[in-house]
């Protein structure tokens, strides 16, 4: 990959310029690792006062666990919902772009989907609360009356639409581009010979996709949706604007006006007016979020990296 020419016998001449330049590139690389470690270290030191403080000094007079748990629950609920919305759609879009659309249109269509990723999250938030939320009211009422026996739709249905359901849809739209982009890349890597062999045996296009493209792309789709999950977990502004929250609640109810908040949205809403121990508590929740997203992302990257070696052998 690299073109270093240091042969075994002779050493290449090391000029001062070389030393300075390579030293500064190494410094830049190490700086990135330092920043990442610094993020963890600074969050940890700033969160520590909240860990050691007694419960009555914390905001809301609850223990740190009781404060954080509903937020983590809300974060996971919203993100999983987003994943349920986005993954099937993204796989469909990726298949459309990679195997159904005319070859010449594939690149522009992919660019159109990438435009979804370019829209800032604040705008998704405004759109979610102004346009999408009112549209979901009818759906919520219908879900309450027909599927009300499920805990997810037990109601009472919100009249504003600022529910976890809306948040799930908005987050789903926001993570759609990344899942689509990664899945598309993986689908395009399917060995051409596998596809042609399937077609030559008389398979229809769908059978070819089911027998060659999907099995080949499965790990890629899994890690793509985990990357999307990481995005959805950390998404702040859209949730902060759309969701109407009631603190400390843990509920699977997706359509009611009282919802558990998410970690990121809670920080954004509370931080500007907080001081003292409240800031430490918020930073502690941020640390928890950092830990969760780090774990999800590392797992996803690990799967992708493992696959990259695997697909190189094909």
């Amino acid at each position, binding site marked *: 990959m690299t073109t270093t020419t240091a042969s075994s016998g002779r050493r290449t001449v090391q*000029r001062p310029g070389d030393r300075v330049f390579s030293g500064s590139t190494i410094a830049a690389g190490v700086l990135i690792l330092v*920043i990442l470690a610094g993020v963890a270290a600074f969050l940890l030191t700033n969160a520590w006062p909240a860990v050691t403080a007694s419960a009555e000094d914390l905001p809301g007079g609850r223990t740190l666990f009781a404060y954080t748990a509903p937020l983590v629950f809300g974060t996971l609920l919203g993100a999983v919902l987003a994943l349920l919305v986005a993954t099937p759609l993204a796989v469909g879009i990726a298949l459309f772009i990679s195997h159904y659309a005319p070859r010449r249109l594939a690149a522009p269509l992919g660019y159109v989907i990438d435009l979804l990723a370019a829209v800032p999250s604040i705008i998704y938030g405004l*759109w979610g609360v102004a346009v999408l939320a009112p549209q979901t009211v009818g759906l919520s009422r219908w879900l309450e009356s027909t599927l009300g026996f499920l805990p997810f739709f037990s109601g009472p249905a919100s009249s504003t639409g600022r529910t976890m359901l809306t948040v799930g849809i908005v987050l789903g739209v926001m993570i759609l581009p990344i899942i689509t982009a990664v899945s598309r890349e993986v689908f395009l890597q399917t060995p051409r010979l596998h596809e042609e062999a399937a077609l030559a045996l008389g398979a229809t296009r769908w059978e070819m996709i089911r027998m060659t493209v999907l099995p080949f792309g499965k790990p890629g789709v899994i890690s793509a949706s985990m990357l999307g999950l990481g995005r959805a977990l950390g998404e702040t*502004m859209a949730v902060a604007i759309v969701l109407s929250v009631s603190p400390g609640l843990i509920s699977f109810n997706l359509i009611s006006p009282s919802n558990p908040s998410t970690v990121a949205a809670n920080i954004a809403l509370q931080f500007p007016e907080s001081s003292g121990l409240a800031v430490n508590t918020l930073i502690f929740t941020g640390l928890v979020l950092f830990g969760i997203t780090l774990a999800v992302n590392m797992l996803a990257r690990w799967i992708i990296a493992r696959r990259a070696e695997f697909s190189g052998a094909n």
Partner: protein
Amino acid sequence: MTVQTAPQQTPPGGSSGRPALAHGVLPRWAPWAVLAAAAAVAAAVSVTAGLNAALFAVGTAVLTGAGLYAWSSSVEGGRRAKDRLVTVVVSSAFLVALVPLVSVLWTVLTFGLQRFDLEFFTYSMRGIVGEGGGVYHAILGTLIITGLATLMSVPVGLLAAVYLVEYGKGRLARAITFFVDVMTGIPSIVAGLFAFALFALFFGPGVRMGIVGAVALSVLMIPVVVRSTEEMLKLVPNELREASLALGVPKWRTIVKVVIPTSIAGIATGVTLAIARVIGETAPLLITVGITTGTNLNPFDGRMASLPVFAYYSYVTPGVPRDPYLDRAWAAALVLIVIVMVLNLLARLISRLFAPKTGR
């Protein structure tokens, strides 16, 4: 597979047609005919239900799928029918994804154009209550903060990418690659908390400055710059490097004079896309920079306004006549989306116009 009985069944889609070949292949126009028929039926139903656009779209898709499946399975057999059904499903998945995109753009345009006037771009919010005022201060704040973030992240990102491509071997390079990838997934709010905690160490707990926001944004920006630059440097043909080294040019001059100029267009594209990604970030600026009504051009002194935070506060905490505040929020959102789209277009133009001169 199916045994065909003499007369053709008419499909539920309402379209009539005879198979083109005796042993069962639908004519080429069959999907479009079914689509048109389904759209007609769905339109009739949704007009009677009171002009329901959602019902029309869903109805068209469902009827097309069902009609085509039924027709095809009666003529071509189950396997082909399934294939056609999946084609309909996959195509409608793509169309479904276009709905939010179009809706977002349309909403921002219609609401945003209400206040998209000269005053909006030339006035700050100092002393403004109710109507009037603008985002002059917020635009300048966004440009200053994003500019500082770019100044900090581009050198670091560029050098780190050079290390990974030209020098990096062994565990350090692998660790950097892995953690750069991981770093792209850091939630923006966590980056904001990090910058806040870093500066609170020196300036006390209530710190709000433009530079803090710039540091937070550069945490988000560095991994994007590294990744895109790395990809571009890898595209530079090895022959160029070897030719330069063979002439006795030191390695660092080879990189500075040959490798980077060859890939500069791609690098510029990557940097532009990275700027476009962070310029709309709200959460880190909300907690590190805050908001102010006046114009503050000094990133080292006190709160600054920025477009996304301005839009957020105008929308969630409007004043007593609500409408002017909401109009300003939407107009600020429109400015933001225009900036982002222009940056995206610019990135594509750069890569198109100054394509790498690899001789291929």
